[in-house]
């Protein structure tokens, strides 16, 4: 075999992104197995990973993790380039834009729970717009808005709480590590 002329050395950052993306992909696949009453209403557990990455490593890494998750998750579920993929992608992009703004809110009052709920609303908003413009060209799609909005509040709250808890424990874990050293 000819030795490769291109040497790719993954940086520490690359490995970290890959690790987080892998965790998010696992959650996406696991979530696909949960039966849900309405198409489109999903807990979005993978977003917990995005929230944690956002808080610890910043917006750029959160974008990487989120988009890698959408891409690889759709490949694994056989959804790549299907309508569901574009709905996920539009939702993820809108959430990331909103997260980019929400992270600058005063930290004293607004934590991961706020970020999570705001991102969930951005997610359903973008999905409804894409669905209305492209998949169901009728105002009837907006009829389900209250259901989606309620799901955004509930799952946004739960995901945000889990992310906040994980962040708390990660910080505590680092502290104890530092003390032991």
């Amino acid at each position, binding site marked *: 075999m000819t030795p490769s002329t291109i040497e790719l050395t993954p940086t520490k950052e690359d490995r970290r992104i890959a690790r987080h993306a892998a965790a998010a992909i696992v959650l996406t696949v696991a979530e696909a197995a949960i039966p849900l009453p309405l198409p489109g209403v999903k807990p979005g557990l993978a977003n917990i990973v995005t929230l944690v990455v956002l808080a610890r490593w910043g917006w750029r890494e959160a974008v990487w993790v989120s988009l890698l998750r959408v891409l690889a998750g759709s490949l694994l579920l056989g959804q790549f380039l299907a309508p569901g993929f574009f709905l996920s992608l539009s939702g993820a992009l809108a959430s990331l834009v909103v997260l980019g703004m929400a992270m600058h809110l005063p930290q004293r009052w607004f*934590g991961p729970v*706020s970020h999570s709920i705001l991102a969930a*609303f951005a997610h359903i908003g973008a999905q409804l717009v894409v669905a209305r413009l492209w998949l169901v060209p009728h105002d009837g799609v907006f009829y389900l808005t209250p259901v989606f909005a309620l799901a955004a509040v509930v799952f946004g709250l739960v995901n945000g*709480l889990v992310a906040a808890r994980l962040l708390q424990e990660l910080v505590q874990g680092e502290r104890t590590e530092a003390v032991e050293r």
Partner: protein
Amino acid sequence: MKPDLGGWRALLRAGDVAVAVAGLGVCVFALLTLWRGGAPDGAVIRAGGKVVAEVDLVHARTIEVPGPLGVTVVEIRPGRARVASDPGPRQYCVRQGWLTQAGAVAICAPNQVSLSLSGRAADYDSLNY
């Protein structure tokens, strides 16, 4: 095992509660505006039994409908419609005023013009006064 609810509550900051409440507010607002029963979608205008116009109730406009006695003027406004003037002798359809419910009908019988509001979820087959 007792669930540690206090631990979870400590993770909520003041703004988080505000955001969650605002989110619920959006739900209620969406529910009230989108799930109104009986809200009309559009208006159907007939003359001599034939449909002459089917319009939405989004843009304000005035429609003139010719009949055997003269011109009946139908006024459309966002969410409602009425017969503004009619050449008929008793003016029943004009005096009915604004129609706001899906299924409501104003009939100007002498001039053979009718105005009815259509809707996805009409509470009534027809309304008269």
